């Protein structure tokens, strides 16, 4: 039982990070039908920028409390990533908005490679350690252990997701986003500034990515210019699993993927008597993805047209 609970915690923490990143993919897809492959790299940029700030602060003012230092890191990383998202949209995607669908997709992959290499040039090829500034508290619940970092990730992820839903459902910007998702032409005829809405989508998605990036580097204790690739791939799969273009779907897909990976890796070896080991973790996760897509091609919560954003 304690192992089951532990795997549940592992899965939820991992899943909430996937969900945050998946939201960025799904929001952009909902509005532009574009898979923004550079999104994983924005997550990486968030981690790197916050680490640079944290490292500088730790040197300049060693006495500062860890949470404050982390807050400063986030406070710089979020606007930097927002600006980056805005820039990418303006430079790489907007000129191609009426091009065939393959063109922006290829541009997205190109942007992702450019960002990786920029990060490699600035911060080098080395793994960068996350300084031990956070409280390392650990709590025992029914034999399972959960750390302060894990609790912070879970709470922060839930808060951010709830805020995002509120923004999309209740504000003028949210309504404009939903309208643009349904039809760009009609929305612009109704007086919605479509360019501004699309830019806002990129900005919001990038802010979420920045937070996720900081979470990941704080949780695993390291950052690296390559870290966005796998994270982006997993989050993209999560978005597809939940139904790409659907906000609730991205959250559900992220959590599910985290849980599937966690339970898959934890139990698959014992259940098959060692015939399939934990190296089948990813195979297992993608098998579930394929199975879902066979029976529900638009994902778990994906609807064909309505309410995509």
């Amino acid at each position: 039982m304690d192992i089951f609970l532990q795997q549940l915690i592992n899965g939820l923490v991992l899943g909430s990070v996937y969900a945050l990143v998946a939201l960025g993919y799904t929001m952009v897809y909902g509005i532009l039908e574009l898979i923004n492959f550079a999104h994983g790299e924005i997550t990486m940029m968030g981690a790197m920028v916050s680490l640079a700030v944290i490292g500088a602060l730790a040197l300049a003012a060693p006495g500062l409390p860890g949470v404050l230092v982390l807050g400063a890191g986030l406070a710089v990383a979020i606007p930097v990533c927002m600006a980056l998202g805005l820039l990418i949209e303006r430079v790489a995607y907007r000129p191609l908005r009426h091009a065939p669908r393959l063109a922006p997709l290829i541009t997205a992959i190109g942007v992702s490679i450019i960002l990786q290499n920029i990060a490699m040039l600035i911060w080098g090829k080395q793994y960068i350690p996350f300084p031990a500034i956070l409280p390392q508290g650990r709590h025992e619940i029914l034999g399972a252990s959960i750390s302060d970092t894990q609790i912070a990730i879970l709470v922060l992820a839930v808060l951010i997701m709830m805020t995002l839903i509120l923004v999309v459902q209740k504000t003028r910007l949210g309504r404009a986003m939903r309208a643009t998702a349904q039809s760009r032409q009609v929305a612009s005829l109704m007086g919605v500034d479509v360019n501004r809405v699309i830019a806002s989508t990129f900005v919001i998605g990038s802010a979420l990515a920045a937070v996720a990036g900081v979470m990941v580097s704080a949780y695993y204790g390291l950052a690296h210019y390559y870290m966005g690739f796998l994270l982006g791939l997993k989050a993209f799969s999560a978005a597809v699993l939940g139904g790409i273009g659907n906000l609730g779907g991205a959250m559900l897909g992220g959590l599910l993927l985290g849980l599937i990976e966690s339970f898959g890796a934890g139990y698959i070896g014992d259940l098959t008597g060692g015939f399939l080991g934990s190296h089948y973790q990813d195979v297992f996760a993608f098998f579930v993805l394929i199975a879902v897509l066979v029976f529900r091609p638009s994902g778990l919560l994906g609807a064909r047209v309505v309410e995509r954003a």
Partner: protein
Amino acid sequence: MTGHTLGWVVVAAALVAGCGDKPQQNGDNDVVLIGQVSPLTGPQAHLGKDNENGVRLALDEINAAGLTLGGKKVMLELKSEDDAADPKTATTVAQKLVDEGVVGVIGHLNSGSTIPASKIYSDNAIPQISPSATAVAYTASGFQTAYRVMTNDAQQGTVLGNFAVTKLGAKKIAIIDDRTAYGQGLADEVEKAAKAAGGEVVAREYTSDRSTDFMAILTSIKGKAPDLVFFGGMDPQAAPMIKQMKQLGMQAKFLGGDGAQTPKLIELAGADAEGALASNPGLPLDAMPGGSAFKAKFEAKYGKIQNYSPYAYDAMHVLIDAMKRADSSDPAKYLAELPKTDYQGVTGRIRFDAKGDITGGAVTLYQVKDGKWQTLETVQSGN
């Protein structure tokens, strides 16, 4: 095209090919190309760059001292390639180096890329010395061109498995590997040796060389209450793994191979690294015959030594040593001299056995104490 003209084309082509070949091998060209391959991008780029710097340091020294082969002044030129630790890329860059006309190759870094590349070097009779590939399979394929200056996994794994059971007193052992030729090979040898020494392997789990999340497999391992967790893989995985063991409240000791015995591991795992154990083939840098001198030279030019650069440096010297004895940079001539190598390098005395493995390689065990790798003991492997 008639048969007649086709015949002329073939003759012309043969003539052109013949002309092209000659000056490259025997002409007045005194530039000799040496290949170096390691991952210069991707998660292991820091180790790859370290190898490249080791080779470059040796090469610059040899050029500065002046090298004369067959009565001609020779300038060495480095062709460094990036295999991204990927077996497929490794074969591509190996072929590229062969096509460019290198006469010898130092590399690759990873066993997984060294092994497929060794076939290409063997097919083209280009001698290859790996400074860091430790998988048994590399020299077991019987290629005449494959050499290494690093203790192999069978030698290292046997020492590690024995050490875990007899010295650390671990009865129940969990083993994780990263599914690379290196990680898996080492883990297999540790499993064999631990069982032979009377230990019980309670879990065998797997991850990849790109993962940073091990919570799921560690939780599963925790349920089996091992005394020790062995990980066959590199430091980018070992560091978060150690942190996550602490996070889960696991009491088991951590033991790793040479991929984990790096300064980077301590930097990445921070205070959690305390007490972690790992081995490295050969002697500790301070105990190497030329260790302190090498360290001073290397760090003046390239900064901190990561891991394998002393071996890369020695491998380069061993290659040139064979060329000097053959008095030729022609692979066909100096390859015959490689098995007779008896070279006193930075890392110790280098001699090869019939397979191309280094003989009597030492394995040293280390533990992190007060934020530093401290030497526990050095074991001579019974090859």
